[in-house]
């Protein structure tokens, strides 16, 4: 179910729910994923992973494994001693294979390439490793203990594109700290009418893209060639090139379809190990993670936090103070960026007199944590929004009123010096409140809640693209966005088609091949439609300019008199089809035209100040709680996709629906467990439950808001992540509305039952000072 607030438009391809160009190939099993591919002479790999959480390695003996028939190469850290074997997006802290030390259960120690996977697995079992145990710090409290051993030593080296300014030194196991300090928070808290405070825990979560990390690597005289399911092929290319001491042009990455990403395939993951094996074996190697391996390849950060909010007696928000620690696991991956984004999300989109944030990124002896859909915002929004609701309860306001009173308005500054707010937040909140019936009469054990937040979206705005027209008039869009389920190839075709006046279905869009498809920074931060889409729109316009030049000469009129349409260019009643334009230009049926477009930090506004746009995170839910079991049923959920302009409304709805279910999983039951010794406690899908059809809310609403206020093509801006941040917050607020105060996610039946049946309020979070 959806409703749309539409701006008037005259587009035909953009704004229409065209069918996905890749759906048929995918549903027929024709679409190739890396795991389905094979290259000539290919070997199969298996990785030996550390069974212990923290130890020094005193000996590795691979001789038995090397002797097993069918084994072609056994690789250990020692095979990389001619290189600087460290990588890491934010901090260069991670060796391709463990060197003298392992830091988490599951860390790759050695890898075998063999004629088949069974042989590689058998060989892995023959590798002998002696570990000398070190203290295992498998939780935030353990790693933050002043007596804790440092998990990393030596100077901190910045990653290639960390984008975080000068990286300060580590403090113990804290690898990065992000602070906001505005106004006089202390004074305000000392005198405020209402102060709400609490401590909160958010769990580590597994992204579970159904396709695990997969890569095929070859290494020969031409360099490295990879078929990898990576979201950001150009960033991976740079990192692999640096690791193996090659110019980037000699690392070629093909990205086929991805079986989901959600951030789990951001940045470099298994690619370096596969390249190391191919380098030693002299043959291509295929490496496919199993689910338990992908779970320790990347995950969402667990967090503990303390937050206070001060308000006036009439419900005006005054000050907020937050300390938060994010568990980034044994290697930083994208943790520092997640930490900064969490810090930015901590105040929420409100007008404050003072904000103090101290966010730290902490190493622990667990699998590394990195990106997962709406990182940072998901961690903070449920906390901040639960305190806003608590202020509302104490000051006699309803959840919509308090937000109306305090939310930022379009054009107001969100953070000093950054892009001002580009969305109508209160309008968005009203829509979800209405959809889930906030304020309507309700029964016992039923609650309704809304939440609102912002996510800095777009990442670094660098994308390039090209549009190519053949002599036959056939068009292909060359754009390196990764198709991982969101439908980017369809959306890109729609954008280019709109400019060229041809049906989107006639434009071919393939996955990235870094040797030939133009540079795109990344597919993440909801940026593809907005940033890569704008580069592609400019490329299509550039192509059109070239076509117009030829047509203008042919018609012998100014190009401004020529119109696009009917599969070509029109002057009055004369039409020149695109193939005709091409013949006019080249004098025979041959030649081609290429239009190119780029987006970079430019001018003022979206592409200079950052973020590119503020992604809106707004949702509402209605819950019904079984007082006997503590089980939570989601009877209604609603989200707002505030997308500026929906290039393909149906695909926008799918983004929000999928994000809603992931948000419900995060809120209600998903949680990765690590025991004290660092062993994963639930590393199969039997124990780690993800949402199924049974978890679908009875009523699911996605409201698409189109105010044409985005910096992307046709006024668009990205979506798909915001809902994931908004849902857990709406759930905890709905539970609080039913009298159940949750300070630790997931809100499992046990936690809900305990909160419901505690004799006095278990919510130690709320105390009033007056």
């Amino acid at each position, binding site marked *: 179910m959806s409703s749309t607030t539409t701006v008037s438009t005259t587009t035909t391809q953009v704004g229409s729910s065209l069918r996905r160009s*890749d*759906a048929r190939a995918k549903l027929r*099993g024709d679409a190739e994923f890396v795991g389905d591919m094979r290259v000539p002479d290919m070997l199969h790999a298996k990785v030996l992973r550390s069974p212990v959480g923290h130890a020094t390695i005193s000996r590795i003996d691979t001789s038995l494994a090397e002797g097993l028939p069918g084994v072609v190469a056994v690789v250990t850290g020692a095979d990389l001693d001619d290189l600087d074997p460290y990588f890491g997006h934010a901090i260069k802290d991670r060796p391709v294979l463990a060197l003298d030390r392992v830091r988490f259960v599951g860390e790759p120690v050695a890898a075998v390439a063999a004629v088949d996977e069974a042989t590689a697995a058998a060989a892995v079992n023959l590798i002998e490793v002696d570990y000398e145990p070190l203290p295992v710090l498998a939780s935030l409290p353990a790693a933050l203990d002043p007596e804790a051993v440092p998990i990393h030593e030596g100077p901190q080296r910045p990653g290639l594109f960390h984008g975080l300014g000068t990286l300060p030194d580590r403090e113990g196991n804290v690898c990065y700290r992000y602070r906001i300090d505005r106004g006089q928070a202390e004074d305000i808290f000392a005198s405020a009418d209402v102060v709400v405070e609490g401590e909160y825990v958010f769990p580590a979560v597994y992204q579970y893209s159904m396709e695990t990390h997969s890569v095929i690597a070859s290494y020969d005289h031409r360099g490295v060639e990879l078929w990898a399911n990576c979201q950001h092929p150009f960033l991976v290319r740079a990192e692999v090139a640096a690791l193996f001491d090659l110019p980037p042009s000699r690392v070629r990455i093909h990205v086929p379809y991805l*079986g989901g990403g959600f951030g789990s395939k951001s940045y470099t993951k298994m690619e370096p190990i596969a390249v190391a094996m191919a380098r030693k074996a002299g043959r291509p190697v295929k490496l496919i993670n199993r*689910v338990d391996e992908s779970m320790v390849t990347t995950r969402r950060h667990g967090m503990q936090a303390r937050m206070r909010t001060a308000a006036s007696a009439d419900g005006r928000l005054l000050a907020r103070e937050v300390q938060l620690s994010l568990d980034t696991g044994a290697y930083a991956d994208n943790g520092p960026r997640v930490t900064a984004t969490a810090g930015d999300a901590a105040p929420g989109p409100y007008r404050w007199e003072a904000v103090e944030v101290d966010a730290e990124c902490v190493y622990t002896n667990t699998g590394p944590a990195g990106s997962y859909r709406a990182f940072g915002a998901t961690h903070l929004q449920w906390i901040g929004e639960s305190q806003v609701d608590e202020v509302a309860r104490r000051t006699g306001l309803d959840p919509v009123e308090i937000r109306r009173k305090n939310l930022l308005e379009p054009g107001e500054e969100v953070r000093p010096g950054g892009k001002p707010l580009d969305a109508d937040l209160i309008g968005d909140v009203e829509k979800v409140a209405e959809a889930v019936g906030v304020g309507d009469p309700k029964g016992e054990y039923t609650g309704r809640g809304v939440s609102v937040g912002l996510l800095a979206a777009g990442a670094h705005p660098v994308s390039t693209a090209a549009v190519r027209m053949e002599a036959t008039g056939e068009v292909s869009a060359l754009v390196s966005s990764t198709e*991982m*389920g969101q439908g980017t190839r369809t959306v890109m075709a729609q954008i280019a088609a709109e400019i060229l006046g041809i049906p989107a279905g006639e434009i071919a869009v393939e996955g990235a091949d870094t040797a030939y498809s133009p540079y795109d920074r990344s597919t993440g931060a909801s940026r593809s439609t907005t940033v890569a889409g704008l580069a592609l729109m400019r490329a299509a316009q550039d192509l059109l300019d070239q076509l117009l030049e030829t047509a203008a000469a042919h018609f012998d009129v100014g190009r401004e008199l020529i119109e696009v349409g009917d599969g070509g260019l029109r002057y009055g009643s004369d039409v020149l089809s695109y193939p005709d334009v091409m013949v006019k230009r080249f004098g025979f049926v041959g030649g081609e035209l290429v239009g190119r477009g780029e987006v970079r930090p430019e001018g003022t506004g979206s592409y200079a100040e950052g973020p590119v746009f503020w992604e809106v995170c707004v949702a509402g839910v209605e819950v019904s709680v079984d007082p006997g079991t503590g089980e939570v049923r989601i009877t209604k959920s609603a989200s707002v996709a505030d997308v500026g302009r929906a290039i393909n409304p149906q695909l926008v*709805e799918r983004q929000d629906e999928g994000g809603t279910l992931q948000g419900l999983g995060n809120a209600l039951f998903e949680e990765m467990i690590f025991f004290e010794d660092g062993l994963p406690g639930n590393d199969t899908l039997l124990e780690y439950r993800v949402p199924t059809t049974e978890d679908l809310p009875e009523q699911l609403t996605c409201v698409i808001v189109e105010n044409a206020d985005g910096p992307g093509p046709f006024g668009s801006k990205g979506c798909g992540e915001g809902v994931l941040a908004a849902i857990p917050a709406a759930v905890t607020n709905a539970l609080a509305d039913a009298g159940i105060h949750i300070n630790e996610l997931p809100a499992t039946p046990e936690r809900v039952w305990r909160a419901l049946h505690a004799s006095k309020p278990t919510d130690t979070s709320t105390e009033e000072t007056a």
Partner: protein
Amino acid sequence: MPENTTTRIEAEVNGAPISAEVEASTLLLDFLREELLLTGAKRSCEVQVCGSCTVLVDGGPVSSCCYLAADIDGRSVVTIEGVRDEPGFEPYERAFIDHAAVQCGFCIPGMILTTKSLADEGELPRDEEGLRDALSGNVCRCTGYRAIIDAVGDIAKAVQR
């Protein structure tokens, strides 16, 4: 290759007879993907939770990640490759495309085979509860299920009298 006992199997895969020597421990999923190059069945959870490896054995859905290749001896196996060109496939394709129920697509062949096995028996539910139940053994991490349930509901109406 580690020592293993092999057995000969005679079976029918997508309507064609096959005869092969397989190791006792070989999983049906690996046999289909690696030996027969039928890659429509996908590997994900490997513990019979997600359904992405679903194929039909004698018409019924099985998780090929937890099914021995040796056990197809004397049986008939159908994968997505065996149904996608059948005349009766059109309603399946149409419904999934029209509802935009295919996102990354990794789960979809399994969803379709689960649906088809029920439809072939005339047991595909038409009501929301029944549909949710019927598809509860197939995980999709992308779509949020709404579109898939709606698509399968359409299929139920189209292919069952």
